[in-house]
């Protein structure tokens, strides 16, 4: 490229410095949160990032004396179960709509697509009543059922399955594979990048979800991390080092996943965003 030979212009250096300052500002809340989680209560009023005597006592206290570990498990369980279910059902529906010709196909697709227009906030009241009538309030199934399948995922997967050549599927049919196995063993692996994108934003969405878990759970044993953190922080009011430790625990898993899967995550977000 010709650009490489061009001398570095001072304009670029200024842009770089401004971007750097911006990046530091963006990271400040996260850095201070982690920093405070390693401090004793009397130190958090100081701006120093690294404590003179860093401690893990906040984390130990959090896991031993509060229900954080339980909330953490609940969050993982709910996010994983929803993600697995979304991956399976959304691709099954997307695959069927993309690769089968049958009457009513268009209608089904438009109907599912139209659910994208309905905001969650409108559904929470009827969901709550539904959950109450089926005895699902304050239960895992109650937490999970609104997110078992998503219109966005169906739409995304349909787009991707359309690019899978019919020849592949027909060849498998001649080999005598059942339709269901063609779907799981031939079609699914061919759209692996789309599946990973869908998995990433489904998991992230469920991990950070607040409104519905807040509504459907009432006993602390069933709280997810955001709901637990919210109630816990309300109680601990001025003990900011404890609140920051809780916030750090809520943030850490997604940060770790990001560090390992950065490329996939950004691509997944672009995919999900642009198609949505």
């Amino acid at each position: 490229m010709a650009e490489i030979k061009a001398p570095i212009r001072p304009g670029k250096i200024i842009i770089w410095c401004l971007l750097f300052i911006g990046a530091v500002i963006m990271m400040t809340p996260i850095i201070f949160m982690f920093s405070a989680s390693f401090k004793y209560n009397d130190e958090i009023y100081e701006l120093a990032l690294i404590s003179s005597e860093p401690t893990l006592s906040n984390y130990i206290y959090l896991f031993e004396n509060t229900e954080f570990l339980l909330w953490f498990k609940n969050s993982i369980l709910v996010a994983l179960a929803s993600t697995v279910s979304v991956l399976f059902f959304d691709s099954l529906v997307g695959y069927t709509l993309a690769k089968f010709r049958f009457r009513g196909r268009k209608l089904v697709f438009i109907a599912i697509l139209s659910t994208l227009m309905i905001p969650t906030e409108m559904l929470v009241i009827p969901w709550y009543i539904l959950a109450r009538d089926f005895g699902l309030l304050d239960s895992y199934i109650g937490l999970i059922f609104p997110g078992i399948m998503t219109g966005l995922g169906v739409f995304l997967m349909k787009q991707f399955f359309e690019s899978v050549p019919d020849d592949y599927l027909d060849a498998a049919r001649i080999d005598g594979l059942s339709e269901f196995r063609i779907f799981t063993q031939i079609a699914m692996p061919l759209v692996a990048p789309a599946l990973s994108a869908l998995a990433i934003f489904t998991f992230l969405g469920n991990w950070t979800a607040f409104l519905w878990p807040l509504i459907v759970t009432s006993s602390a044993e069933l709280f997810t991390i955001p709901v637990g953190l919210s109630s816990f922080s309300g109680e601990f009011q001025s003990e900011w080092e404890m609140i920051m430790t809780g916030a750090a625990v809520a943030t850490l898993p997604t940060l770790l996943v990001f560090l390992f899967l950065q490329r996939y995550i950004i691509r997944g977000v672009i995919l999900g965003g642009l198609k949505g």
Partner: protein
Amino acid sequence: MSIDKKRAVTAWCFISVPIVYFILVRFYPTLDAFSISLTDWNIVGKKTYIGFDNFVRLWHDPVFWQVLGNTFEYLLLGVPISLILSFIVAHSLDQIRFGHGVLRACYFIPFLTTAVAMAWVWRWFYQPVPVGMINLALGQMGIKQLDFLRSTTEALPAVLAPAIWAGLGFQIVIFMAGLRAIPQSYYEAAKIDGASGFRILREITLPQLRPTIVFLTVISSIGFLRIFDQVYNMTQEGEGGPLNATRPLVLHIYKAAFERFEMGMAAAQTVVLFTILLIITIIQLRVLKNG
């Protein structure tokens, strides 16, 4: 059975469970929300049909108008600020190579955080001295302290800030994808014509980014109209105070439905929210079609 028929049967078998699900968990609840909005119902007692009374009451309720005003204030501040900031960052990031990946990651990471957790971090920052970082820093620089969450005028922007902050990474990444999609030849042609950087921006970059800008405007509008997590966690007792100064529509709905159990009233407000979002989506489709 013919092959076509057999395959149609397979197709219906595959989508039968999902169809039942979408009817039971999406369509029926949507209709239910509309139907509840026409009733007076405290969730345990009898549902009384009252026609459009809930909507009439909302129309005459000054608090509801204040809440709607707040909601649009989030939108009208949040959308332009976040779009301009994210465009500037994306456009600059696009030009540099040194440390590109790390810088991009720093801007993107806030998008992966949990809104509830970050709301508490920002709430801590906003505290008066000696607790809050921002006032501590302002104090050291000899600048007057700010009230932030305690003030009826400063609270709303203070609550909005973490929402903008967390969304920037997403918008930057989308803007950068949009910038990458602009053919290099356009820029080269402009350079040969001797166009200034500003003209290139105005006459090539921005027009080419039009679909991206429309998309991000709609997505972020919908996001800011639905703001809830930050307000619930940053204001005293999750009330959206002080004096309702930060209370958005979704919090108002939550309070009506799940604290006072005025289901009809709450459902009516969700219908209002739905209508606003629908109008925005229709405007988006119009704008994209004419483009």
